[in-house]
């Protein structure tokens, strides 16, 4: 593994483009900027082509003989299947509005991280093979041949895109680099070219139900640890159910919440909230993943992984589904799930059993976001909250890219935070809501071998946090995404040491006054509550 440069070194970014044109500047695959190649066993599990041992650092990537033909046929097939792809190949005018919108460009200065140029990497091959002008005029028309070096460049740069869609917000035609990256990654997968940090979790999810490969008894075990902690803190013993038929609600959250801090605190938050409400719900070990790493390989695999949620809801006979805090999970659930695996006609219109609110906006998918659910509870005064318990926190909120630009959930989490915390501060308006900056580790880039890439990509987000840390003394970065909870702590430690990361429902649980609880002296992290220092 390469050594990650120190922050003062990494923050000296040179934005001057090279002297040579981009087509004449081959990609140099720099260590620390890529993830390991996918292992053969994971590709075999997923029934993906060309499983073999390989490394991106190798000269020879062990491709099948006819790899060019495979890619070009795949390209043609996708142009015929997706209008978005076809239109986005043709209508870019290279106005440059997107050029400085990508966190990877801001953090690296590499011109091929400008969304427009990232797309041109693929467009140039499209022009060279599928347009008359490109075939005749070649380079003059921005066309080029699909060579081994171009292929490596694709792999390198399309795994330097977190599919965050920020560029799409600023594009006058809505050209979405995420769509282009998704197509490019599908093409690369036809040759067995992915990263193991994506194919590993995807294979786990396929066989075991979740990315982390937690087997059913491990899920129960992990939750039991949390239940013990909750009992210690609140004196209340919670008994959740698993795979229970006839429950009213199926709860699905990313497995990251069950595994590592600070995600586990968010999971404890869900457990405490549901217990306090007396909600008739169940966890599932089969559909134990809301996230979808298939989404970072191909539409088909994404659909295969997603199918478990509806299948399990049907098997258990629940009425509707509640989903936890996650980023790309919600992009998938909002924009794809019903199309792939619906209609969910075996479910009922989601209705909060506590407030009676009918979630009209989820009348087809029958799946409600927990922030919508909790905001509704608070609005109806159904929760007893003591925001003073969060008084040691100065909170800012990070909108996750996928929920921001693929769903538009902005007010619900803010409403919740403002009701459970007394100190809330917004970051720079150019870095929140639909203009939010990615954590730099999304879409399967949250590995450890590409730390330099992640720290570069995280720079814009971290820098906006640093600004509110300096201005208001912010010490807590809240979010509604499991990848954020996994990725942002490392990014904060690197760029803004001393800033912690939390899910919104951890804040809720800390403020939640539960029936029959003992006097709380610590928060879920075991830290003393303000005014309680010295006790216990």
């Amino acid at each position, binding site marked *: 593994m390469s050594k990650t440069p120190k922050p003062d070194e990494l923050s000296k970014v040179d934005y*001057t*483009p090279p002297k040579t044109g*981009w087509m004449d500047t081959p990609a140099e695959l720099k260590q620390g900027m890529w993830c390991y190649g996918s292992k053969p066993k994971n590709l075999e599990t997923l029934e993906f082509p060309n499983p073999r041992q390989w490394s991106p650092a190798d000269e020879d990537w062990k491709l099948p003989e006819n790899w060019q033909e495979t890619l070009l046929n795949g390209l043609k097939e996708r142009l015929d*299947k*997706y*209008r*978005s792809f*076809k*239109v986005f190949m*043709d209508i*870019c005018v*290279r106005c*440059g*509005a997107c*050029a*400085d*919108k990508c966190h990877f460009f*801001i953090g690296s200065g590499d*011109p091929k991280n400008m969304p427009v140029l990232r797309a041109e990497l693929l467009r140039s091959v499209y022009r060279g093979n599928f347009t008359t*002008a490109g075939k005749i005029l070649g380079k*003059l*028309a921005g066309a080029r041949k699909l060579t081994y070096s171009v292929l490596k460049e694709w792999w390198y740069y399309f795994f330097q895109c977190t599919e965050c869609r920020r560029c*799409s917000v*600023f*594009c*006058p*035609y809505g050209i979405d680099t995420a*769509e282009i990256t998704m197509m490019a990654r599908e093409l690369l997968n036809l040759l067995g070219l992915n990263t193991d940090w994506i194919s590993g979790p995807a294979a786990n999810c396929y066989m075991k139900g979740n990315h982390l490969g937690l087997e*059913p*008894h491990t899920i*129960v075990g992990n939750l039991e640890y949390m239940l013990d902690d909750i009992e210690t803190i609140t004196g209340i013993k919670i008994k959740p159910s*698993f795979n229970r*038929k006839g429950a009213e609600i199926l709860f699905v959250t990313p497995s990251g919440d069950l595994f590592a801090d600070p995600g586990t605190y968010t999971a404890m938050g869900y457990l405490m909230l549901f217990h306090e409400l007396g909600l008739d719900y169940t966890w599932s*070990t089969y559909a134990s993943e809301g996230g979808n790493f298939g989404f970072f390989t191909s539409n088909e695999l994404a659909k295969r992984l997603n*199918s*478990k949620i509806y*299948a399990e809801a049907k098997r258990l006979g629940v009425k509707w589904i509640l989903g936890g805090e996650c980023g790309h999970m919600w992009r998938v659930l909002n*924009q794809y799930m*019903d*199309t*792939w695996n619906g209609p969910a006609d075996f479910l009922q219109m989601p209705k909060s059993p506590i407030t009676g*609110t009918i979630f*009209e*906006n*989820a009348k087809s*998918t029958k*799946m409600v976001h927990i922030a919508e659910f909790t905001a*509704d509870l608070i*609005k109806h005064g159904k929760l007893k909250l003591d925001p003073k318990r969060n008084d040691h926190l100065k909170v800012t909120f990070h909108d996750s890219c996928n929920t*921001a630009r693929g769903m*538009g*959930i*902005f*007010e*619900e989490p803010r409403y919740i935070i403002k009701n459970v915390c007394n100190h809330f501060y917004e970051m720079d308006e150019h870095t929140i809501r*639909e*203009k939010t900056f990615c954590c730099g580790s999304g879409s399967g880039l949250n590995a450890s071998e590409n730390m330099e890439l992640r720290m570069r990509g995280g*720079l814009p987000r971290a820098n*906006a946090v640093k*600004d509110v840390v300096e201005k208001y003394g912010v010490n807590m970065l809240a979010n509604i995404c499991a990848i954020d909870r996994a990725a942002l702590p490392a990014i904060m430690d690197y760029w803004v040491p001393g800033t912690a990361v939390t899910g919104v429902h951890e804040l809720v649980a800390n403020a939640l006054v539960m029936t029959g609880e003992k006097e709380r002296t610590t928060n879920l992290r075991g830290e003393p509550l303000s005014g309680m220092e010295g006790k216990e």
Partner: protein
Amino acid sequence: MNAILSLIAVIVLVLIALLGVKTANLHFLFGIAVPYTAIAVFLIGVISRVLKWGRSPVPFCIPTTCGQQKSLPWIKQSKLDNPSTTSGVIGRMLLEVLLFRSLFSNTTFELRKGPKLAYGSTRWLWLGGLAFHWSFFIVLIRHLRLFTEPVPSCLNKLEVLDGFLQIGAPGLLISGVVLLLAVTYLFLRRVFIPEVRYISLAADYFPLFLILSIALSGIIMRYFTKVDIVGVKALTMGLVSFNAAIPEGISVVFYIHLFLVSALLAYIPFSKIMHLGGVLLSPTRNMPNNSRMERHINPWNYPVHVHTYEEYENDFREKMKQAGIPVEKE
């Protein structure tokens, strides 16, 4: 290099028309045959291009949501930036097409010492783009007076409005000046902004030079060489009534202007200028964010191989039983 090649290409086009008319006397070719061909190529090209896009389905509902979703009744939805209905989508598209709303929200950033990233709004590209497209559109509409008899009164009114500064004779039309300035700005930013220069292809410079030359030749004709407008009108009316003839005495500048316009028309279907059709077909902008409310259908959806619950339970039955998790088969 790309810019120079594009400039040369446009100069060659000018020379073709100049020599063709002045030296070879090919008035019929440049006055009638080329314009008809160009229009045919334009119409067939644009229609077939749009149909080609239209043939590819939109399998998923993928709008870029730039505002608050429709959710609980007491939360205010951003109906234009995150529309959930057709009328919201129409509103969003109108603002996009007529006012370039996405460009309006464009930002700049700067990396200062610290490191400190600073962001700000920038509207130069928005202003330049808007000035360019609107002035081009008004110039185009003004030209309709050459293709109508009698000239509709709205065209006369537009011309009065366009020339309200009343400078010189014939009166200066503002749209032409704005077009010239805007196209120059768009060219200069391509040359002077390093990132934009780096991404610019010949296909980006060529249409700018072409439009610049069209505007210049038009301005030369109107204000300097004072083209025989009666002759021009006779020719254009002949073209629209499919009864074309070449009147005597129209200066060669007109033929150059006409040839460049023909070149632009014929070039459109094969170029990025098709963004004018493509923007309407862009799924990230022209769809409502209602996919949790209404099921979106993928026409090529097909069954996939899934790992069923039964297979899963077979793999883990004993472990599940030990952990107290209910199973289907004991």
